[in-house]
C-alpha cells in the first residue's frame, strides 16, 4: 500500500552503480556549450558584484565614482568587462536556444548543431559590435 511507504524501503538500494559522467563521453559542441552556459552563469553571478559596486559608487559621489572609472578603465578592468560582456551575451543567446528547445523544436542533429554554433558565433559578433560602438561613443580608445 502506497500510503504506508517510508524511507526504509530505499535504504537497501544505497550502493547501486552510478551513471557514467563527463569524462567517459567524446566531447561534442552541444555538450561544451552546455558546460559553457553553466560557467558563464557562475561568472555572471559573481560579476554582479561589479554591477552593484558601480551603482553604489555612482550613488555615493564623484570620488567613489572616479575609483570605479579608474578600475574599469584599466587594462585588467577592460579585460574583465570584455569577458563579462561576452559571458552575458553568450548566456543570453544560450538561454534563447534553451527556450527554443523547451518548445520541443530544434532537436534534429543538424538543427541542434546549427543552433549551438549560432550562439557561439552570435555572442562573439555581438560582443565585438558592442565594444566597437562603445569605443566610437567615447571617441576612440583613451
Amino acid at each position: 500500500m502506497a500510503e504506508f511507504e517510508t524511507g526504509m524501503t530505499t535504504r537497501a538500494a544505497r550502493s547501486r552503480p552510478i551513471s557514467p559522467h563527463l569524462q567517459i563521453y567524446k566531447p561534442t559542441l552541444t555538450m561544451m556549450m552546455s558546460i559553457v552556459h553553466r560557467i558563464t552563469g557562475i561568472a555572471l553571478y559573481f560579476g554582479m558584484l561589479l554591477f552593484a559596486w558601480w551603482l553604489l559608487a555612482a550613488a555615493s559621489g564623484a570620488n567613489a565614482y572616479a575609483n570605479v572609472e579608474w578600475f574599469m578603465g584599466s587594462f585588467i578592468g577592460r579585460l574583465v568587462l570584455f569577458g563579462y560582456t561576452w559571458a552575458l551575451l553568450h548566456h543570453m543567446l544560450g538561454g534563447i536556444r534553451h527556450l527554443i528547445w523547451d518548445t520541443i523544436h530544434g532537436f534534429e542533429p543538424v538543427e541542434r548543431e546549427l543552433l549551438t554554433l549560432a550562439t557561439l558565433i552570435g555572442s562573439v559578433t555581438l560582443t565585438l559590435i558592442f565594444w566597437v560602438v562603445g569605443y566610437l561613443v567615447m571617441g576612440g580608445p583613451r
Partner: protein
Amino acid sequence: MNEAQPMRTLMRHVRGLGPARSGTYHFWYQRVTSVAGIPLTIGLLLIIIALLGRTHAAVVQILGSPIVAIIMLLFIINIAYHMWIGMQEIILDYVHDDKWKLLSLMANTFFVFGVALASVYALLKLSFGV
C-alpha cells in the same frame, strides 16, 4: 466516489517525494526570468552605451531618470531571482555533503539579497536624491 482513489493524500506526496504539483516551480520561474531577461539585458546594454565616457554628474542624472531607473530596477530584481535559482541548481548538482549543501544554499541567498538590495538602494538613492 471513485473507490480506487483514496481521499487521503499519499504520504510520499506530503513529503514532497511524488507529484505534489510543485516540482516544476523553479523550472518555470527560471524560464519566466529568462524571457524577461532578454529585453532587460538589451535595455541595460543600451543604457551603458549611453553612459560611456560621461561625467559623474551626467551619469547620476541619467540613472536617476524614471525610464532608465525602472529598466535598471526591473533588470536587477529579475536577474537576482534568476541568479538565486541558477546557483541553487548548481549547488544541488555538485555539493552532496549535507552540511556544506545547507551552508552554500544559505550563502547563495545572502549573496543574492546583498547584491540585489545594494543595487536597488543605489538606484533609489540616485532617483530620489538626498
